[in-house]
């Protein structure tokens, strides 16, 4: 989209100028103690052994206190229990999400799309940035295009800034792509490639991640648990710490092909915020209730789509927001809008409606089993994650291909793969067939 050549000074300002003067005062993220990162490798496509494992720095992880493993009700993972298979296409941009400002005729368009596998996690921080840019034009009303998680949070942040907001969208929940995601805190899952994003993006990412993390705290402990923390048990038959090598899908890299070729090209920033993210802790062998030799536990923040989605929409309506069902096909369609300031949150649809060819679809699939409210945890084992959410047991194979984050890149087949789902469910089912629940 650089082809437009109309990036406003606001957008450029963001990229070029802001870091120059004060690089020295920004080391807050560096205050973090050397802790293992609690990023969720589910959507990150990383094996537990590399994301939650002992770090290369050689630091030792803390061991969980005896008696802190509660009685665990087994997950009933059987192929004949599958109620749904959801497939989504992550809107991945190698240079990171698009947040620049464009002038199109008499409209000021603030872009807010392309968050890869991190849209839920970064949504509030990204919305804050987009709304801040929109406010410089002194609007009284803004249009938000798109009603996925990024559109909804942008609309709410705009309302909280005192603006009248109309969401224009072709689909509402539950038809928006983002509700077909995994729904865990994964703020740097396929968010960018290291080289195209450049060193500056890390600072922007950190700002979005910290702002979102704090925003989500406001939604904890509410009826229906729209947002909650779950213990996630990271299980392995082999010692943690062995780093897996990922295969390449071909020669060269993004610079030479226009597509990444290896998981090593993907950027990771989670270390920057580990001062506020719960660390993983090792479970001693005599405390380990699972039929595996090695186990760790980390507290993971999750988003329950049903409760959270409806809550956000209710807040939007209660604050006077309006939703207009409308489909856009080209930027010239904006002419018909009464609002002069537009926050553009179309997700992957920007590839078509805004001709943004930098967007790369990254396919992901989740299988769903009936809810088990008595299961209050998740597990990750052999490249598959299972997580108990309010709307069901989610099961996802996150590294079936052995490609790590390259898994699904460029794959826009947005249909269920039953075999993939059954394989993932069978992995978890096999684990629990060997599990001996203790009496509490």
């Amino acid at each position, binding site marked *: 989209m650089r082809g437009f050549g109309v990036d406003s000074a606001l957008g450029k300002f963001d990229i070029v100028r802001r*870091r120059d003067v*004060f690089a020295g005062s920004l080391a807050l993220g560096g205050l973090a103690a050397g802790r293992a990162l609690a990023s969720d490798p589910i959507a990150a496509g990383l094996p537990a052994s590399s994301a939650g494992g002992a770090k290369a720095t050689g630091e030792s992880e803390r061991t969980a206190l005896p008696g802190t493993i509660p009685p665990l009700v087994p997950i009933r993972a059987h192929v004949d229990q599958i109620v749904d298979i959801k497939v989504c296409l992550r809107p991945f941009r190698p240079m990171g999400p698009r947040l620049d400002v464009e002038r199109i005729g008499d409209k000021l368009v603030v872009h807010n799309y392309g968050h890869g596998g991190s849209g839920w996690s970064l949504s509030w921080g990204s919305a804050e940035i987009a709304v*801040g840019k929109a406010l410089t034009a002194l609007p009284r009303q803004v249009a938000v295009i798109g009603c996925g998680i990024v559109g909804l949070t942008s609309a709410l942040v705009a309302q909280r800034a005192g603006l009248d907001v109309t969401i224009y969208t072709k689909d509402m929940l539950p038809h928006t792509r983002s509700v077909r995601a995994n729904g865990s805190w994964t703020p740097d899952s396929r968010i960018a490639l290291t080289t195209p994003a450049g060193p500056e993006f890390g600072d922007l990412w950190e700002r979005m991640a910290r702002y979102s993390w704090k925003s989500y705290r406001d939604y904890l402990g509410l009826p229906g648990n729209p947002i909650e923390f779950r213990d996630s048990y990271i299980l392995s038959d082999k010692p943690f710490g062995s780093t897996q090598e990922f295969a390449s899908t071909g020669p060269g890299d993004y610079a030479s092909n226009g597509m990444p070729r290896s998981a090593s090209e993907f950027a990771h920033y989670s270390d920057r915020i580990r001062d506020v993210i719960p660390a993983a802790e090792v479970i001693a062998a005599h405390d380990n209730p699972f039929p595996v030799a090695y186990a760790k536990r980390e507290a993971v923040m999750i988003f329950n789509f049903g409760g959270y989605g409806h809550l956000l929409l209710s807040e939007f309506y209660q604050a006077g927001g309006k939703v207009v069902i409308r489909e856009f096909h080209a930027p010239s369609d904006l002419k018909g809008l009464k609002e002069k300031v537009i926050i553009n949150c179309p997700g992957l649809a920007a590839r078509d409606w805004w001709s943004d*060819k930098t967007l790369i679809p990254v396919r992901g699939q989740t299988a769903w089993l009936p809810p088990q409210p008595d299961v209050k945890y998740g597990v990750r084992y052999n490249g598959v994650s299972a997580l108990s959410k309010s709307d069901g047991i989610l099961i996802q194979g996150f590294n079936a291909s052995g490609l790590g984050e390259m898994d699904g890149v460029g794959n826009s087949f947005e249909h269920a793969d039953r075999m993939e789902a059954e394989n993932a469910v069978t992995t978890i089912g096999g684990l629990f067939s060997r599990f001996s629940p203790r009496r509490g």
Partner: protein
Amino acid sequence: MMAFNALRRRDVWLSACIVVGGFAYAPQVRGAERTGAVSYTAEQAEHGAALYKQNCAVCHGGTLDGAFDTPSLRGRLISNWSGTTLDKVFHYISKAMPLFAPGSLKPADNAAIVAFILRENDVAPGPRELPSDEGALKKISFPSVGGKRAKKTSSTSP
């Protein structure tokens, strides 16, 4: 393909723009027309940058973007102070900031900080220093983006 699309769209919008009468958001922040134009010197803003780093960055951040509980000094700042005159923001900073030692900076230093904040919000420097007395600042409108100024001053702080 990309260039073609871009060209075509721009043509469409260019004509739309002319028909509508030319109202458009200018990407650059403009000085006030009603009263004296904003002017600060590059040196003044540079001095303000050093003061900001010492006194303000701890809360408002190195990039002026604020944090979850601290207002941003870019973006939202424009809407929060738009429609006022520069003496207002100068007065506020002089009395209330820095939060851990309110009123501890000299007037010239506070004017330099205002100059720096204006620079970081894309207001271009000029030939004259920004004055540091409220009487003179009262004659200068807070700069706004675009040709249209919202009548209301934002009453909804972030």
